[in-house]
C-alpha cells in the first residue's frame, strides 16, 4: 500500500531521521520527502512523506513509533495498489469443486477480494466459471497463475487468463 502523510516535526536536529527510521525498519520504501520550511505551527515544521509499506499492520507499527517519538500526524492518506484477478475456467466442474476453489482462493495471501460466477447446471458435462477479484500485491498474481495452471491440468479444465496475467 502507498501512504502519503503530513507530519509536524519539532525544529531540532534528528527529528526527521527519527520520523523516517521506523518506515525503513518496517521494510517500507520511501518515495519522497518534502520539507515545508515556511509552514510552521507551534514551533514545528511541516514535512510531507510518501512511502510504500507491505500492509496495514506495518503502517500501524510505524504510527506507534511516531506516537512514542511525539511526531504529530496532521493528515494521512493510505492507498492500496490492487491488481485485477481474471480467470475463466471451462470444463466438467462440479458444484463441490466450485466451493472448494472459492475457499482456496479466499485463503490465499494478498487476495483482497474474490468473486466466482458460473453458468450451467451441476449435471452439465461442461460448465464455465469466471473468477474475478483484486490482489493487493503483484506476487499474488504469479501465485494465482501457478494455482490455476496446476488445478486446470489436474482436473482437465481449459484455463483462460486475462490478457495481462
Amino acid at each position, binding site marked *: 500500500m502507498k501512504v502519503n502523510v503530513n507530519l509536524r516535526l519539532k525544529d531540532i536536529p534528528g527529528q526527521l531521521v527519527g520520523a523516517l527510521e521506523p518506515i525503513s525498519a518496517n521494510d517500507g520504501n520511501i518515495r519522497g520527502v518534502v520539507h515545508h520550511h515556511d509552514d510552521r505551527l507551534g514551533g514545528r515544521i511541516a514535512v510531507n512523506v510518501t512511502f510504500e509499506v507491505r500492509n496495514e499492520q506495518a503502517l500501524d507499527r510505524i504510527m506507534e513509533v511516531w506516537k512514542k517519538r511525539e511526531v504529530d500526524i496532521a493528515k494521512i492518506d493510505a492507498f492500496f495498489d490492487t491488481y485485477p484477478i*481474471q480467470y*475463466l475456467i471451462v470444463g466438467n466442474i462440479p458444484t463441490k469443486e466450485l466451493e472448494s476453489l472459492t475457499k482456496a482462493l479466499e485463503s490465499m495471501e494478498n487476495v483482497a477480494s474474490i468473486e466466482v460466477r458460473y453458468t450451467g447446471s451441476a449435471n452439465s458435462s461442461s460448465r464455465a466459471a469466471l473468477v474475478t477479484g483484486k490482489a493487493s500485491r503483484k506476487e499474488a498474481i504469479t501465485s494465482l497463475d501457478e494455482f490455476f495452471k496446476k488445478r486446470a491440468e489436474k482436473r482437465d479444465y481449459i484455463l483462460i487468463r486475462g490478457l495481462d496475467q
Partner: protein
Amino acid sequence: MKVVIAGFGTVGQGIAEVIGMRQELFSKSFRQKVRIVGAFDSSTFVKDAKGLDPGELVARKAATGGVGAKSQEGKIREFIEEYDFDTLIETTPTNILDAEPGYTYIMAALNAGKNVVTSNKGPLALKFRELSRAAERNKVQLRYEASVGGAMPVINLSRELLRGEHIYSLRGILNGTCNFILNRMKDEGLPFDQALREAQEMGIAERDPSYDIDGVDSACKLAILANAIFNMDVTYHDILRTGIRSITEDAIALAAEQKKVVRLIGEINDKRLEVSPRMVPMGHPLAIGGTLNIVQLITDLAGEITVVGRGAGRRETASALLSDLLAILSDDHAKGR
C-alpha cells in the same frame, strides 16, 4: 535473377503470378528481370533456362492439375543442387511431423549456394537453427516473412527496421480461423461446433480443422517468431499450447459480461512462450475481429508497435514472398552482383 518455384499449389501459383505482374519494378529498380526457370509440384515438373511464362504455368496447373511432365521420384533434390538458378521459392505444404519435403528442398538449395524464400512453417518450426546455420555457412539468404501472418510484415519489420530496438515482448493473434470462430461465437451466441461448421462452409476452416483449432498453426508461427526476433533456439514442441476446441458459448458469454472477448493469443516474453485462449478487453487492439492477424511488440525506444494484416490468401502470401525476393535483389544490387 533466376528462380525455381517448389510447390505449385495456391501459394506457388500466387507468387508466379506476382512475379509476372512486377517485371517492370524488377527492371526499373534492379535492371534485371526475375525469370522463373523451373517449377514443380508433388508429381510434375517443368524447366526452361530461358524462362517460363507465369500465366501459362498457372493455366496448365488449372487445366491438367500439374505444372509440367511427370517428375522422376527422388530426382528433385539433385535438380535443386545441380540446376543453374539463384533463388528457390519454397511453397510446399507445412508438415509439422518431419518438415518434409520442404526441409530437404531448402537444405539442398542452401548447401548448393542458392538463396531460399519460403512460406513453409514446418522446416522453420522444427529445424530453424539448422537451416539458419546452413544459410550462414553457405553465405546465402534464407528468408521467411511469408511463413508467419501472410501479408503482415512482422519478421522483416522486427529484424530490419527495428534492428536498433530492444524488443521485450510480443503477443498477437496468429490464426485467422480461430479468430473468426471465436468472434462468431460471441457475436451470434453460436456453440463452437456451429461456428466451426460455418467457417468450413465459407472455406475459412479446413475439413480437418485440428491444425488451426488446437493451436498447432499458431504455435508453429510463435516458434518461428521466437527464433527470428528473440534469437531463441526453440521448436514448435517447446511452445505451451492450448487450443479453442473446448471453449463453450457460456464461457464466451461470461467473458462478455465483463466486457471481454476471448481470443487465441500467442505470447513471447521472459516468462512465457505460449499459445492459449485469453480474455481481451473489448476495444483493445487484440480484440480484433474477422480473420485478420495482429502482432504487438513492446520495445524499449519505440514503445508499443502494432502490426495488422491478412494472415492468409494467395495474393497476400505472395506479397510477403515478393518482399523477401526484393530484399535479396536489393542486397545483391548493393553488393554490385
